[in-house]
């Protein structure tokens, strides 16, 4: 499977993944609630750029982040985010009921201990607080296409060291799409909802964003109509009494 134009597949992939990123970020911002005194936590905050945007939308100055990568933590710290270093596969270093809003954007698919993570989200949320989880969709149209061709979906990686079995042969893990450690578990909409509900959350909104291979507004319409096959999944879940 060599493409006629070198790097075309990768460039197209980057085009779609960048467009999809804008879409799910917009979706998250729309679901955040204005609440100036909220204590806010972003799990896997990375360099903190999006955490800052989310905090602005909430209107809070109490912005916390947790990440495992040291350089990212420093970058987040420079933005005025209170950053903790920690592995999201373990118990989180926060007391019960410490946050009003928690986000985990493109994080849960990297974890091996998904059950503990969701339990921990529930524990550190105060009653009435909410969590927003974003993750790639295993049932997206392009992943189904990959499987039709007998290829490994890029998002369903099987190694932390090398991208294997995909339509992009010989690639070291794609820097733009994949960061270490690689994905462990890949979700469909029903599974993400089901997992959150299993651990006590009440799912308020479960939707898809972006739709392969459609551009901008068309993708938005398609994702609204058929969220189960969208590129990304977005679930907002609340901790009720």
């Amino acid at each position, binding site marked *: 499977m060599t493409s006629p134009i070198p790097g075309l597949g990768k460039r197209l992939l980057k085009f779609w993944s960048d467009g999809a990123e804008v879409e799910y970020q917009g979706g998250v911002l729309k679901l955040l609630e204005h609440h100036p005194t909220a204590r806010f936590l972003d799990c896997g905050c990375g360099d903190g750029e999006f955490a800052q945007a989310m905090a602005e939308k909430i209107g809070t100055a109490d912005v916390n982040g947790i990440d495992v990568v040291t350089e990212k933590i420093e970058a987040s710290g420079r933005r005025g985010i209170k950053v903790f270093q920690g592995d999201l596969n373990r118990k989180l270093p926060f007391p019960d009921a410490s946050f009003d809003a928690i986000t985990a954007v493109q994080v849960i698919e990297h974890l091996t201990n998904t059950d503990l993570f969701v339990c921990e989200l529930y524990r550190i949320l105060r009653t009435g607080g909410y969590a927003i989880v974003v993750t790639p969709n*295993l*049932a997206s149209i392009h992943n189904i296409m990959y499987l*039709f061709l007998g290829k490994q979906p890029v998002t369903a990686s099987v190694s*932390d060291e090398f991208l294997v079995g995909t339509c992009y042969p010989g690639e070291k893990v794609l820097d733009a799409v994949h960061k270490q450690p690689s994905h*462990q578990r*890949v979700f*469909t909409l029903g599974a993400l909802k089901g*997992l959150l509900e299993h651990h006590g959350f009440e799912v308020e909104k479960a939707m898809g964003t972006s739709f392969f291979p459609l551009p901008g507004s068309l993708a938005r319409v398609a994702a609204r109509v058929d969220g189960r096959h969208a590129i990304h999944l977005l679930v907002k879940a609340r901790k009720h009494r």
Partner: protein
Amino acid sequence: MRPQPSRVVRAMFGYSVNQLDLEKREDILSLVEPDPNARMLDCGCGDGSFTLEVARRIGTSNIQGIEILTEYAAQASSRGISVSHCDLNVTLPFRDESFDVVLALHVIEHLHATDLLLKEVRRILRVGGYAIFQTPNLAAWHNVAYLLFGKQPVEAQVSDEVIVGSWTGPVAACLSLEGPAHRRNFTSGALRELLRFHGFTSVRVLGTGFLPLPRPLARVLSRVDRWHATNITAKARKGKPARPAGDEPGPQGA
């Protein structure tokens, strides 16, 4: 009226799974090589019954097993297998080149340290020894069908506690989660390339089983369309080291 069709579906499902099981075993038994002096290791040996069957086919009585579930480990021990009760996500408690045959059947999809296991298997194999892997195929037609309906494939589990987002319907009773559930799900190309990446040679990948078809038909189809067979069976050898020891194996041609 309801119980009647569901009983039929359950019986059909039971039949298919049974046929698949036979197919899975047959493919593994067809790949092992007779060698009465072979030192054999079964990673995730379960209760040890199939381990013994493979050992009998090889003709060896030098059998080592690894099993993380205490109950299974005890059963395997009572069958005369020497069992290490340990985790396959960490370094294995064996010296370099201590085995001629290593089996990892329906194991690799349960691990999070996938790369480490493959490195460890290669380390503990003697040069010329071989390993056999078997794992469900993410690209199996029934999984593609699940995804077309927006459902989670039963094999692509997202929790160790429940099966969620999937259609289990009448077959729920046949599914159980014991120990850590699945993490990484392979397609045949991915398994082949990953084995090569970690330095294995003469990698041979077969398709095994073709749900929901009966055996003779499944056998033909799984060979013709191995990309979408239900399971993947791979045999890979540890060749002579091409690079100086300690050097990271580089990517092999895809």
